[in-house]
């Protein structure tokens, strides 16, 4: 609450007037502060979202000029094999992306052990991939994965294994790209989990060790349940993020890669339809379907959390 220019007053009528004026002033100030954000939101989010909804029912070409075609885009979507495979690929990316959580939890638990040295160095190193530009990450990994000249296959050859053409072989490309996605989010998840671990009172562990619980038992009976709100938060973020995978596929796979059909995500397909094939009405319909899927999945996650998330 803002109290500006408030002067003590003795006269009752003028006090009331002043109070009213102050109230008006407060409202105006509030509007003034909310205004820019609300205007920005309305202009750049809400209005375009409404337009997107409208355009998804139209045929909308390269240069504007849309014509209403009812549910045609949605009917076409339902029969498009590319859409089906894009959703399947996206689901795989999402499931694989969730692997980031147990990995981060393990790392966080290790780094959180009392008396461990150099924690901030490890934490910084593991957080680095998260703040590195996806384009740079993709280029470096492309080289690591390269079949003939990549570092991974070079190392594998030394132990007598002939590596694959990781990102141009349809059988390995999806996992290879998903691994990079996991690698780049582990640091972030780990930092959040370390914060969550710090919030668990040491008394629980003291009491547990007095009762003779092993460290492993402590981990599963104390750490995991008490950390479940953090894990829930991270799993929601991870799923929403994975469902929108685009940059890694775009940068690492590219449009002439024979593995593209096996790695093309929904957002990549959206990009292809809207900006390469100029079929924007269809692309907006696809984007809306993805939005509905994200909403549905998130709703399910919130439903399921009652079963496994413990709030203190």
């Amino acid at each position: 609450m803002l109290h500006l220019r408030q002067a003590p007053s003795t006269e009752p009528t003028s006090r009331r007037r002043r109070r009213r004026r102050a109230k008006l002033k407060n409202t105006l100030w509030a509007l003034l502060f909310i205004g820019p954000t609300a205007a920005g939101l309305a202009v750049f989010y809400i209005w375009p979202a409404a337009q997107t909804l409208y355009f998804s029912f139209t045929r909308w070409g390269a240069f504007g000029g849309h014509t209403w075609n009812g549910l045609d885009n949605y009917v076409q979507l339902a029969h498009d094999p590319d859409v089906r495979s894009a959703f399947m690929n996206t689901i795989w990316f999402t499931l694989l992306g969730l692997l980031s959580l147990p990995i981060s939890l393990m790392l966080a638990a290790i780094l959180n052990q009392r008396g461990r040295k150099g924690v901030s160095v490890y934490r910084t190193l593991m957080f680095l991939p998260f703040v590195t530009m996806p384009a740079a990450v993709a280029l470096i990994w492309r080289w690591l994965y390269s079949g003939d000249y990549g570092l991974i296959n070079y190392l594998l050859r030394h132990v007598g294994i002939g590596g694959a053409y990781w990102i141009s072989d349809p059988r390995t490309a999806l996992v290879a790209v998903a691994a990079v996605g996991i690698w780049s989010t582990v640091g972030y998840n780990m930092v959040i989990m370390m914060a969550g671990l710090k919030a668990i009172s040491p008394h629980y562990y003291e009491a547990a060790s007095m009762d003779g619980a092993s460290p492993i038992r402590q981990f599963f009976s104390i750490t995991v349940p008490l950390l479940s709100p953090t894990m829930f938060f991270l799993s929601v973020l991870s799923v929403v993020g994975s469902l929108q995978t685009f940059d890694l596929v775009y940068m690492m796979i590219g449009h002439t890669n024979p593995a593209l059909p096996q790695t093309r995500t929904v957002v990549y397909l959206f990009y292809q339809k809207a900006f390469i094939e100029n079929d924007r009405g269809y692309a907006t319909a696809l984007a809306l379907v993805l939005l509905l899927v994200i909403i549905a999945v998130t709703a399910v996650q919130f439903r399921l959390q009652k079963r496994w998330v413990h709030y203190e």
Partner: protein
Amino acid sequence: MRNPLKALGVVALVAALAACSSGGGAGASGSPSAGQPATITYGLWDNIQAPVMQKLADAFHVTHPNITVSVQVTPYSDYFTKLKAAATGGQAPDVFWLNGPNFQLYASNGMLAPEQINASNYPDALVKLYQYQGKQYGIPKDFDTIGLWYNKTLFDAAGLKYPTADWKWADEQAAAQKLTNPAKGVFGLGAPPSGQENFYSTVFQAGGSIISADGKKSGYDDPNTIRGLKFWTDLIQAHYSPSMQQMTDTDVVRMFESGTLAMLYGGSWHASEFANNANTRNTVDVTELPAGDKKATVIHGLANVVFARSAHLDAANQFTEYLGSKEAADIEASTGSVIPAFNGTQQAWVNAFPQYKLQSFLDELPDAVSFPVSKNTSVWNTMESDILTKAWSGSESVDQAATDLATQMNAALAKEGQ
């Protein structure tokens, strides 16, 4: 600022000023009457060519002191996204570069102003590339054809004679076999699934087609087209070419430059790149593409076009007319970056890199076939790379892939007509 009403007033003032300035801009861009100074914009994507384009703009300003040209460079990756948005809003550059695959999209949507040109000044296939429904909308700027680049060192090591202009497919396949040396990691001929550099030309050499002349039907189910595609997949299956996976991981041009690829189908645009690379400066050369049933190469080139909704149509037309002149072509040729489209001005480009037989790219002109395009080329370009890569990586037969591609492409072309 303590007083909220005052603050609101300032916000309103700023908004009003912003509205004023944009309104003022619109007013100022009204068409000037003859003799009044005008500034037109020239949109293009190549940073390497930008200084030459600026030179042309300056030279034009000398003879047309009333018209100033402002050159605007947008990187290729963003060029068409930005141009599409700008054209939709009526704000595209007055004059801009356009390529074959995008031309009909802009022409059919009424984005381009018709042009008057003397067709005999330019290669026929280029003039036709920029016609839509019988009308000319673009003035050819430059062109490129495809040639057979080869590594002389690897030919010498294998004891083979260098390729010549009379080579046939069989000569090339035999050479590719002899040049391939798995022990040294050397391949005979690179066969990436690339239309312009590779299979378009061989399809034409086999008597096939990519798209019918009226742009309504796919040519991929033609047995001759399929023979043109098999030329490449056979090379991969015989391991005379790197595998599809290898070529995805490492670009064939890089392989050629590092000496692990003996022959490469490459564009005239590669000349300056190879000349600037110490590995290839003096060890590679180029000749005409080997003939199949007949000789053929795909030809593509850019055009200068005028935005139909330009506020300075007259000035823009004068500028494109100048860009299409011999004088402008001579300035462009002297830099060696591209082959100018104006007939008879190409010698300067050939002379720019005397160590290569660049004349080969010009000798192919009588057999050159227009780059295949339609109204929404990129739709079936995406299908080409999606479907043909299956045949290239061996997961599907060429016949199957080509038939699928033809079916899907025909459906896409039918949709274009709506």
